[in-house]
């Protein structure tokens, strides 16, 4: 494939174009958007704000990417954000010395610990009891905010702890601490899933869990792990969100963030039907969403129109992606080349060991791994058609 064809077929093309268009819009309407200056030894400006405020969503979207790749979805992340914030702030407020670094560390550790437990609960329901992911995580989504309210007693808990607020307002080498933490976790996920076979195994589970299991993939523990990771990411994001304002707001912290995270994943070209995923795509998706929000604030679009403006931009992105989808479907209707024999594991076309860049086949591209074809082996989900991955 020549380079231009490769670029034009890349699922990242339109999300990236949308991001650039948004930035261009800002350049024209509000040139101050690109001013980045040094303030008290750290970077300061709208672009930095986009990265900083987008960090919690991106972090959650990372976890969501893996969950979606395993053909699941995690609706409970917003509730986990609220619980994590509630536990951290309540723990700091009730410590002997609420302003000591020790109190903050204990608080953060216990919040993340509870996050892992909640993830294990989700994973248990999905992988062991076989409850559909959307239902299994809906349980915690509904109950979670109530739990957070119980922890905070319905109050907004305000804390005053330098170590804790570092996570929200501190800096490392001039960059906001949340951006650095999110970047490190992104790097870790990229290395773990793209430099080892883990990513491929997650995709195998997402494409066809039964076939993956028959091929020797421990699909149960992989499913479990992705939910634990999603909840871990959500609890860290919860710490960031509450550290930004030095308070835990059980009712509003992370409200609807699960939808933003899913949107970021889908804008990034990962199909909701499971299988192939793109971490780079998710990063771009999260940046598109946050740039959109920051644009609304800094350009001063009246509040009444801001949600409409966002909706229009997002619909345009999806519409731009849609013709590709149709084209891909047309190509699939032609007689497909006979799939390589045996096994449900995607054997050939998954390039393990490329960088975290996506493979050019995320949504509905023709080179679908074998397990996806309804020929051979017991295909569990009938919903494997890429068209079903589009948002409805």
């Amino acid at each position, binding site marked *: 494939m020549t380079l231009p064809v490769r670029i034009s077929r890349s699922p990242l093309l339109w999300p990236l174009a949308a991001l650039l268009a948004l930035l261009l819009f800002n350049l024209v309407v509000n040139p101050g958007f690109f001013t980045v200056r040094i303030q008290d030894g750290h970077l300061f400006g709208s672009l930095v704000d986009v990265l900083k405020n987008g960090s919690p969503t991106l972090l959650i979207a990372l976890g969501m990417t893996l969950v979606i790749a395993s053909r699941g979805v995690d609706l409970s992340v917003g509730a986990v954000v609220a619980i994590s914030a509630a536990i951290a702030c309540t723990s700091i407020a009730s410590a002997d010395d609420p302003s000591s670094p020790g109190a903050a560390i204990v608080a953060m550790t216990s919040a993340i610990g509870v996050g892992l437990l909640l993830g294990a609960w989700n994973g248990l329901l999905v992988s062991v009891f076989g409850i559909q992911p959307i239902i299994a995580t809906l349980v915690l989504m509904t109950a979670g905010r109530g739990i957070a309210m119980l922890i905070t007693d*319905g109050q907004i808990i305000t804390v005053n702890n330098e170590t804790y607020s570092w996570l929200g307002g501190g800096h490392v080498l001039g960059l906001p601490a949340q951006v650095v933490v999110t970047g490190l976790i992104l790097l870790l996920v990229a290395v773990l899933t793209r430099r080892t076979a883990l990513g491929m195994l997650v995709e195998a589970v997402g494409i066809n869990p039964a076939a993956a299991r028959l091929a020797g993939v421990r699909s149960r523990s992989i499913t479990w792990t992705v939910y634990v990771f999603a909840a871990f990411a959500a609890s860290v994001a919860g710490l960031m969100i509450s550290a930004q304002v030095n308070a835990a707001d059980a009712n509003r912290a992370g409200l609807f963030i699960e939808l933003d995270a899913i949107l970021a994943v889908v804008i990034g070209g990962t199909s909701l039907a499971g299988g192939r995923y793109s971490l780079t795509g998710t990063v771009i998706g999260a940046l598109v969403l946050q740039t959109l929000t920051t644009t609304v*604030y800094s350009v001063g679009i009246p509040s009444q129109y801001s949600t409409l403006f966002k909706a229009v931009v997002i619909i345009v992105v999806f519409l731009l992606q849609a013709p590709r989808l149709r084209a891909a479907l047309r190509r699939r209707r032609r007689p497909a080349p006979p799939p390589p024999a045996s096994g449900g594991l995607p054997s050939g076309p998954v390039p393990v060991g490329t960088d975290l860049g996506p493979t050019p086949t995320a949504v509905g591209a023709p080179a679908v791994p074998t397990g996806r074809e309804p020929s051979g082996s017991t295909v569990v989900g009938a919903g494997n058609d890429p068209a079903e991955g589009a948002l409805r």
Partner: protein
Amino acid sequence: MFKKTMVAAMAAAVALGTAACGSGDGDDSGSGGGGGGGDTITMGFAQVGAESGWRTANTADIQRAAEDAGIELQFSDAQQKQENQISAIRSFIQQKVDVIAFSPVVETGWDAVLLEAKRANIPVILTDRSVDTEDESLYVTFLGSDFIEEGRKAGEWAVENWGPLGQVNIAELQGTTGAAPALDRQEGFADAIADTPNLKIVASQTGDFTRSGGREVMEAMLNSNPEINAVYAHNDDMGLGAIEAIEAAGKVPGKDIQIITVDAVKDGMQALADGKINFIVECNPLLGDQLMELAKKVVAGEEVESRVVTEETTFTQEQAKEALPDRQY
């Protein structure tokens, strides 16, 4: 005891009357609810949510007052969604409570559900926020603050204290779009500063009454309008969020950028006493006792004023230091 029995008897009588003549004639106030079987009054209360410290204080006071007054409270939290609140009110109607009270999330879109309540002969009391409707008979009374007056008080302080300062560029952090306090506080403030040409609102955006909203909006405003030197926030929480953003931008809240907020919750009062906020207009959430008293009168069929205003004051930094130790919420 006698009074209670009377109430129950009247409620039962009305219930019978309603049953006898179908939908009733929909009289606009004072008729009892349909479910007055026992001798306690049941109140359905649909709260906006717990979006701020103010709101949780309001909720706590209503729950306490209901218990003190011996009124059975059906409490519903709408989590800032009008559709949740509408369905809560519908379920109150189905449960045949004696009186419905609620703080509308937004001003418009209530006619249909309020008409259902009226047809079921359940009187409705609005608390804290009003609704925008042609038909005033859809609710009995509105108990709450005068938000326009609050905005005006904030504006008057701004004119008095910022007027002599030269050019003042104000960033306005609005409440939830379409909510009565947001609209009215905006209007009152704008009216009060209209005749002072050096006070100018250069940016106005919703922070949704939350801290993180106030912080994020303020960050963006400081980047796009570096000349901002004053903030008017429609509640304390957004003001507190703005303080975080202002400090992150290397400026001093209360000095480089002066701040006026509305509400006077404890965290806000603390910031005022610390000199980070310059002036707070109080919006009193402790209206539980007044509400229960009104509810009893309404259920008993007595006439009530169609507008009851809660008592409120304002705080400067010095007054905040004095008031802070006995602040309940």
